[in-house]
């Protein structure tokens, strides 16, 4: 099956006063239709920038983006307009991503007004259908965002994203601003919609339990680079990269008798401005040595499981030996 979305060596740099900030630095992946790629990493690792660059909300510095087999890295105005119908985004913060002076129905109708060319009445009935799909009661139609809770607001954001019947949606931390109980509702809604409409998601989050629940494949990012990428179960069972290990060991275990070993990483995240060519994690990695200062390549460790750590073979062999 050909990939719906393919990203090759995508880079997004920002010019800052102190130098060039490498927000996304050479990310590659392919995503099949109907699948979900979870992107995890700590704040500032470039995961949101990645999503926005793929959607052309930010212009890519280098690399290529292929959608439905077509190169859309630098689309023309008309091409971009068409592309916007097929690719959408759900924002992190439902409080700031909705215009406070637009009523619920006006906000949901806006994409239809721009793209659909339907008559007013058709748009209204379409809006009602969308509200129904995402589980918003009709009485909210003329309410304003500030009158609703986070869950309802996020449903408005989802309805907006769905309005044009897209194929691919970037979910930029769609539940991290919500209550835990509402998180589950919204996640289930997203999964139901995926099944119903064959949607393809990139799910950006820093919440590992969420990403495990929703993703087919997980990509771990650190300072703009891909650290490890594997199918969801594989990543949790067979963790290779020291950073991923540290990250996964930070998931709280609800069983008080289960004393798990915590892999701690020390120090602060290093600056993404003018980074050294070597492994980005080197400064904090407990296993770092001189070889890590050389440019790293991501390796296919096993099928579908790639990792960019030159010592990972050595490290994991040792573990296997220990087990034996």
């Amino acid at each position, binding site marked *: 099956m050909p990939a719906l979305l393919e990203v090759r060596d995508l880079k997004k740099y920002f010019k800052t006063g102190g130098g060039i900030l490498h927000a996304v630095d050479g990310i590659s992946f392919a995503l099949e239709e109907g699948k979900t790629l979870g992107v995890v990493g700590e704040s500032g690792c470039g995961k949101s920038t990645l999503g926005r660059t793929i959607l052309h909300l930010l212009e890519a510095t280098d690399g290529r983006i292929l959608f439905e087999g077509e190169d859309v890295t630098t689309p023309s105005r008309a091409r971009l307009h068409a592309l916007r119908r097929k690719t959408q985004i759900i924002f992190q913060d439902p409080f700031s991503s909705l215009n406070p002076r637009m009523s619920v129905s006006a906000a949901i109708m*806006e994409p239809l007004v*721009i793209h659909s060319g339907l008559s007013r009445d058709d748009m209204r009935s379409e809006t009602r259908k969308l509200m129904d799909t995402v589980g918003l009661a009709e009485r909210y139609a003329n309410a304003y965002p500030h009158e609703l809770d986070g869950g309802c607001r996020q449903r408005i954001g989802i309805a907006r994203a769905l309005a044009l019947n897209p194929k691919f949606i970037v979910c930029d931390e769609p539940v991290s601003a919500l209550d835990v109980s509402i998180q589950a509702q919204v996640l289930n809604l997203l999964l139901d919609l995926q099944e119903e409409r064959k949607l393809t998601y990139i799910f950006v989050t820093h919440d590992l339990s969420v990403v495990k629940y929703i993703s087919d494949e997980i990509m771990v990012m650190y300072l703009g680079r891909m650290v490890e990428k594997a199918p969801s179960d594989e990543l949790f069972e067979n963790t290779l990269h020291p950073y991923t290990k540290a990250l996964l060991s930070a998931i709280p275990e609800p069983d008080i008798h289960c004393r798990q070993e915590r892999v701690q990483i020390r120090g602060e995240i290093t600056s993404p401005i003018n980074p050294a060519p070597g492994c980005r994690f080197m400064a904090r990695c407990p296993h770092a040595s001189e070889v890590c200062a050389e440019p790293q390549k991501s390796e296919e460790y096993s099928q579908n499981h790639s990792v960019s750590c030159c010592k990972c073979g050595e490290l994991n062999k040792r573990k296997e030996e220990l087990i034996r």
Partner: protein
Amino acid sequence: MALSGSNDKQRKYSAFGDVWRRLKKNKPAMAGLVIIVLLILIAIFAPAIAPYSYSEQDSLHKFAPSGGEHLLGTDNLGRDVLSRLLYGSRQSLQMGLYSVAIAAVIGIVIGAIAGFYGGWLDNLLMRLLDIYQCIPMMLLCIVLAAALGPSLTNATVAIGVCSAPGYARLIRASILTIRESEYVEAARAIDASDFRIITKHIIPNAIAPMIVQITMSIGGMILSGAMLTYIGLGAQPPIAEWGGMLADGRNFMRQHASQVIYPGVCIMISVLSFNLLGDGLRDALDPRLKN
């Protein structure tokens, strides 16, 4: 959070309803609003309520005292002061409102373009405004009056044009913050045109400080207008204008203080009421004060 299904029309304007509800509680602002409405009514119906014409001279009754035939007396040419004050409200309000309109339109357009597009265009426009603001307002008004002849219209235009940079800066600043907001990014994600983003997303959210600025500065504009007339660059005699009346009365201030007190009080009351309303609007439009 949950709300009852009330009918459409009521809900639609709830944002303004909220503002109105909060404004109503503010007594000084409401007093200001009442006075402003009264002033507007007086200005509209001046010919009907004024007992005399504003230019009719009665040389036998110069400086008639208050009371009697002339309620507020007459001036140095025997014109009825009350009538002149009533007619004068027309000029003052016109000056205030028109010059604000001119300033706001010019300012909003320039500020919106500079704030929205940013970059070199922003830099260029703002530096031009900097240069422009270096010219003293008074000087510009005198130049305009000298070039086009002193008149009420020219004075109004001069005041309006001179105050535009303030508006431009204000709207630019609020647009700069709104431009970076997520809902504007969300609008871009559905490929909304620049025009749509500016008119539907940015202006409605940037307009609150503008409304306050507009009301607050009407008072200032009335004052500037009176000042220009006072020095002879605004409304020309025999047109009644408060600033002009003040200028005429100045010569007889020692013997007939009422000649300057009446127009002065009128200017003060109208400026004060616009300022009070502006203050009240600022509080009412601030969404952080939700009570």
